[in-house]
């Protein structure tokens, strides 16, 4: 999820399908109503068998009240056969890549819309470098998470190379997932 900076470029129009007016309107309203800007996103997860679980997402809190998606979405989470698992779904750490790609791509589309840049295609490849000796406990000096994440964009648009680079930079600047991955976050895990 991203909100773009306000920098409509004169005389250029584009239709990338992003309702920038609504986003900019929300920005103005929420400037004066910070309490309505407090959202809680939720996922619930159920163990199935082995390292397979299913996770569902339907409700969230925002704009001062409970909200819900149009439909409930369920994801299978598992591990691949090289991890001696049946591979009923993608691995949890791959969901982070999905989130990052989705967030940055939404940002590119929104910023492009706001700047009047017509997009023709946007493709992103996200690669996370991961030394699995960490999670296996094989080497205490190796961390559990990614050592490095690399995103490569291929963008075809009515814009100069410099403008496209600026889209991608601005998208990172306003990306929730980019922030969540690049900055530490307090995480508390409790047993209810």
């Amino acid at each position: 999820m991203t909100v773009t900076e306000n920098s409509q470029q004169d005389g250029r129009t584009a239709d990338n399908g992003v309702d920038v007016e609504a986003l900019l309107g929300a920005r103005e309203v929420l400037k004066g109503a910070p309490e309505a800007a407090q959202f809680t996103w939720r996922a619930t997860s159920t163990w199935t068998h082995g390292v397979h679980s299913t996770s569902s997402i339907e409700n969230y809190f925002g704009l001062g009240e409970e909200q819900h998606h149009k439909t409930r979405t369920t994801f299978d989470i598992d591990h691949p056969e090289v991890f001696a698992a049946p591979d009923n779904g993608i691995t949890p750490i791959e969901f982070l890549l999905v989130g990052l790609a989705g967030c940055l791509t939404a940002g590119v589309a929104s910023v492009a819309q706001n700047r009047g840049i017509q997009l023709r295609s946007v493709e992103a490849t996200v690669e996370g470098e991961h030394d699995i000796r960490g999670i296996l406990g094989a080497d205490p000096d190796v961390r559990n998470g990614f050592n490095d994440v690399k995103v490569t964009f291929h963008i075809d648009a009515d814009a100069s190379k410099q403008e496209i680079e600026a889209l991608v930079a601005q998208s990172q600047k306003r990306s929730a997932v980019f922030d969540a991955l690049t900055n530490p976050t307090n995480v508390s895990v409790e047993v209810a």
Partner: protein
Amino acid sequence: MVLERGQVANSWRTERWDSLRLLTPNWLNRLPGLPYDGPDPDGYLAMGEVVALVERLASVTAAPVRTETAVTSVRRTDGGYRVTTDAGEIEAGTVVVASGAFNRPAVPPLAAAVPASVLQVTPFAYRHPAELPDGGVLVVGASASGVQLAAELARSGRPVTLSVGEHVRMPRTYRGRDVLWWMDASGVWDERFDQVDDLDRARRLPSPQLVGTPARATLDLNALADLGVELVGRLAMVRDGKALFSGGLANVFALADLKLERLLDAFDSWAVGAGVEDEVGPPERFAPTRVPASPRWQLDLGSGAIRTVLWATGGRPDYSWLDVDVLDAKGRLRHEGGVVDSPGLYALGLPVLRRRRSTFLHGIDDDARAVVEHLAGHLG
């Protein structure tokens, strides 16, 4: 009358480090009725010279300055304002708040988690490298203060780590002219506060990475890396005595590099339109900011390697004496181009007060004229 809590040019005397020089070249420091007439128009004033300049202004204009008079309260009255000072009360029809935007260092709350074994200083109190313990320094913030102090401390032989968030990159000279000549001449600084796209952002913009030296050297992040300064991401958290930095360093470099490129493009097209192509050198482009192969994202502040944290994280105004309801939720003065949201109350000397040039010394000329005109109208 002009009330001054200390001596004329107090903050320039007491809240600046020894090696600091103005970012603006001398010819740009024109003040009302005081154009630059010295021998070095392209030089940059040292702090003692700034004090002399402001004293000269006070004397040339015969300004009725009451020094050593600290204002402790300003309150609305029926006819205007009651100004309480440590030397008595004054009734005033109008008041101009010209106390500046940087009265207190803006140190982030996470400073409280820095281990007690590490000395913490701000540019308000720092004077010169010899005051600091030997050993490593973490400089937080890469505006003009941060890059200047990182360079000074690296040259003193200390290992320096510089934590870099969003910043404004600028070469000292462009096409043979001071980059601020371009800002001035091309009209960038003439943009009015009510034309600026995002005024809040413009007013919060960090100062450009510039230093005033006789050699007119550029002090960007590449220059700092050449001095051996280690560049790390924005300081996000101090946890268990470890400083944790953002992993988004490459993007703050990209944002600043792209913004610089757009600025230089704008200068170039202005130069063509204004017909000054022949008076300046050929267009230049600068190498991108080099991203370290694997930027450090944590630093153990308790290991003894870092002896000092220098918070170059900017300043904020102190309006604790202003007992009038004119501050916004973030403690900033509510004003429209210097006309404060309370009849007869005005502001001068704030970033982008009326135009982008308001941020700099010479911006006071036009700003003062406009604000005084409104003030005179208010008095009828």
